[in-house]
């Protein structure tokens, strides 16, 4: 029976990649461990090794093909004695790609594990805000599509060109080009003095970064993920956030702590949690969590220039997503300003970072039901732009918050409290929160899905507050 080789996943969040090159030709003998092809993502180029032995019977996806979905059959291997005639017996999956094969067990293991359900389907192609004029972009500006990964890299590179006191340190930021490839090319441009690989020593290098900031430098400290920053949280809070106050305004700490935050995919509880609420609790910190590539770039540039410690929460699942970024020499988005990502009159949805995916998708669904949601992207969690939320709620009279973080003492809870205190008379219904479930993140695909909020949760919450 011929064996299909499927497009492998190279990371927990990879959904598609390019088939860069076939190393083996049709008719070549293949044995286990042979490199048969190269595939590339925006992060890296990787070799695909054969697991089964036989002859490369047919190449289903020619080299140079872009955006091949994970699990798409890319070639067929014939066992000894089989000939090309056996190919007809192989399932013809090539044309109808992803949805069908997503259910199949992966016969070719490769480096990647068989990946049943990837990221929740609603998030596979995260919706973009409607074509509202970007508040921070002059009319008529040319827009270029970029991934968030590229936008973050460009932001750092631009700020490092602009200010010699800016440097980046963290694990694998230099020679490896970033664990998530956010620092790609920075070492080559700026050298080892300013792009510094640290040992695996979060507590220590966070403290070293804060000390350097106290001396007037402007460090960007990358945490491979914010989960690991818990080892460093004392330096972030007790040293970075409080020293300006405790020194009576003498010692400033201009530093950015950045890295992926929140649930990734299938990495379980210690690697999947949202720190938005944790850091937003702390006076003396600013907390930023962008959703679009443009905001990622403009807000990171603002964060690097900010004289205060800034927690810059990225999202691994969003890194590879593209959206338009204004082509400007110096595009900076001010911290502390929310934006209306989608206008609407019936209900206000408040979200940030990946929470925006649910909110925007839900807004589309609700529109079909005749409910027009106004979606606000907070962009900065602290200082919280509650004024923008209030202005919207005073128009719609109803509000639902959306976040992947836990419910108790979450950012949504804070918004609910402030709305109740400041604009109670305008509310026509209780404000509801859609959050991640109050459990550590499980590993199993089905349980993980259950632990995260869904678009349907948002739709139902809106129906509840609009009584429809």
């Amino acid at each position: 029976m011929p064996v299909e080789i499927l497009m492998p996943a190279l990371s927990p969040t990879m959904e598609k990649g390019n088939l860069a090159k076939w190393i083996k030709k049709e008719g070549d003998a293949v044995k286990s461990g042979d490199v048969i092809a190269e595939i590339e993502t925006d992060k890296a180029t990787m070799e695909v090794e054969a697991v089964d032995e036989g002859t490369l019977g047919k190449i289903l996806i020619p080299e140079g093909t872009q955006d091949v979905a994970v699990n798409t059959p890319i070639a067929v291997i014939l066992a000894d004695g089989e000939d090309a005639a056996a190919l007809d017996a192989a399932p013809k999956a090539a044309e109808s790609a992803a949805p069908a094969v997503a259910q199949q067990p992966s016969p070719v293991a490769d480096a990647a594990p068989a990946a049943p359900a990837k990221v929740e389907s609603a998030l596979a192609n995260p919706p973009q805000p409607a074509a509202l004029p970007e508040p921070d972009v002059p009319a008529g500006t040319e827009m270029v599509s970029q991934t968030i990964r590229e936008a973050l890299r460009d932001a750092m590179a631009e700020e490092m060109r602009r200010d010699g006191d800016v440097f980046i340190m963290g694990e694998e930021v230099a020679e490896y080009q970033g664990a998530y490839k956010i620092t790609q090319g920075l070492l080559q441009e700026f050298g080892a003095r300013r792009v510094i690989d640290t040992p695996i020593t979060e507590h220590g290098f966070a403290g070293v970064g804060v000390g350097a900031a106290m001396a007037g430098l402007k460090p960007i400290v990358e945490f491979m993920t914010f989960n690991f920053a818990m080892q460093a949280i004392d330096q972030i809070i007790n040293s970075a956030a409080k020293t300006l106050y405790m020194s009576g305004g003498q010692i400033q700490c201009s530093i950015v702590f950045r890295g992926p935050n929140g649930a990734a995919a299938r990495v379980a509880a210690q690697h999947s949690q949202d720190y938005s609420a944790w850091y937003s609790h702390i006076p003396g910190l600013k907390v930023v969590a962008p959703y679009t590539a443009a905001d990622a770039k403009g807000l990171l540039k603002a964060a690097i220039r900010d004289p205060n410690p800034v927690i810059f929460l990225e999202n691994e699942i969003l890194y590879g997503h593209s959206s338009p970024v204004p082509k400007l020499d110096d595009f900076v988005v001010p911290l502390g300003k929310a934006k209306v990502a989608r206008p609407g009159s019936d209900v206000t949805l408040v979200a940030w970072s990946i929470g925006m995916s649910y909110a925007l998708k839900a807004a589309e669904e609700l529109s079909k039901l005749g409910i027009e949601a106004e979606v606000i992207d907070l962009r900065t969690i602290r200082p919280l732009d509650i004024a923008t939320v209030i202005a919207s709620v005073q128009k719609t009279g109803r509000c639902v918050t959306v976040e992947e973080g836990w419910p108790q003492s979450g950012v949504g809870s804070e918004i609910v409290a402030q709305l109740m205190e400041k604009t109670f008379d305008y509310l026509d219904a209780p404000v509801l929160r859609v959050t991640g479930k109050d459990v550590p993140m499980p590993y199993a695909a089905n349980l993980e899905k259950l632990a995260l909020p869904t678009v349907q949760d948002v739709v139902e919450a809106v129906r509840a507050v609009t009584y429809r």
Partner: protein
Amino acid sequence: MALAAKKSAAGTAAAGKPAAQKAPARRSEKSAVKSIAEFSKAEELEAYREMLAIRRFEEKAGQMYGMGLIGGFCHLYIGQEAVVVGMQKALKSGDQVITGYRDHGHMLACGMDPKGVMAELTGRRGGYSKGKGGSMHMFSVEKGFFGGHGIVGAQVSLGTGLAFADHYRQNGNVCLTYFGDGAANQGQVYESFNMAELWKLPVVYIIENNKYAMGTAVNRASAQTDFSRRGTSFNIPGEQVDGMDVRAVYAAGQRAVEFARSGKGPYILEMLTYRYRGHSMSDPAKYRSKEEVQKMRTEHDPIEQVRARLLEKKWASEEDLKAIDAEIRDTMNAAADFASSDPEPDASELYTDILR
């Protein structure tokens, strides 16, 4: 340069410089410095004056704490004065100093105004942090003093970061990073040691071993009680120093600072010292005997040692020294008066200096 003969596994260090750093752990248990360069008359008098100023300041602070004028925690430096005075003498303008919560002596040694320090202890607007930091959190960028940190061991990473900035700027400055025998068991100390040596940062780690981490004697908390060897696995050289002898401290400080400044990386000085008072004002110090304290006071007091030499060499008379003492008492009384009469911070200060 002081001619302090150093014992060294790699041989004699000629001009008082440490030998190759390949031999980091070269101090033995009883190796407190054998011979030390003598101080000149002017140096002895200066050291006497500075150490006495710290002691009188601390005595005054203790008194004011008893009167309820100082709140919270207050950790006195009495007994350890020779460490900061000797080390400060080895620095030049632009160098940085950072320490933990037992910090009053370090601030005075850096040249900070006793009035501003005392007013911070009493939580007044004229304090170095406008009354918002208190005893453990004071800073003076002008004097190169970067705190004053209340989390045990946190200053070690921060000081390493200050040295990182010096290295980044190639400005030739050195950071003195002080911590105690208690902090020496914190993990981030070793994370910092590793990076400092890896990147050859100009930092001198000064471990003030006063024999007790709060109430826990060194041998009850530390598997390796020779703290000068704590950098061994990172190839950081270290030495034990008689921290009660200001001349020994200065000699070691010169070697260490020169080493760090010349680009060879970090250096560890373990200062064998002693605090006469409890860990903080509320500590009756039942974990040690009165005799132990008395023995240190009578046989090793850092100020008395200088005083005896001044008198013996007839560089000062009893009257001269009394006059110095009186002058210092006046200064400290004035600081205490200021700190008692200066107003508390304005209520509006509650919301300032949170963000810039």
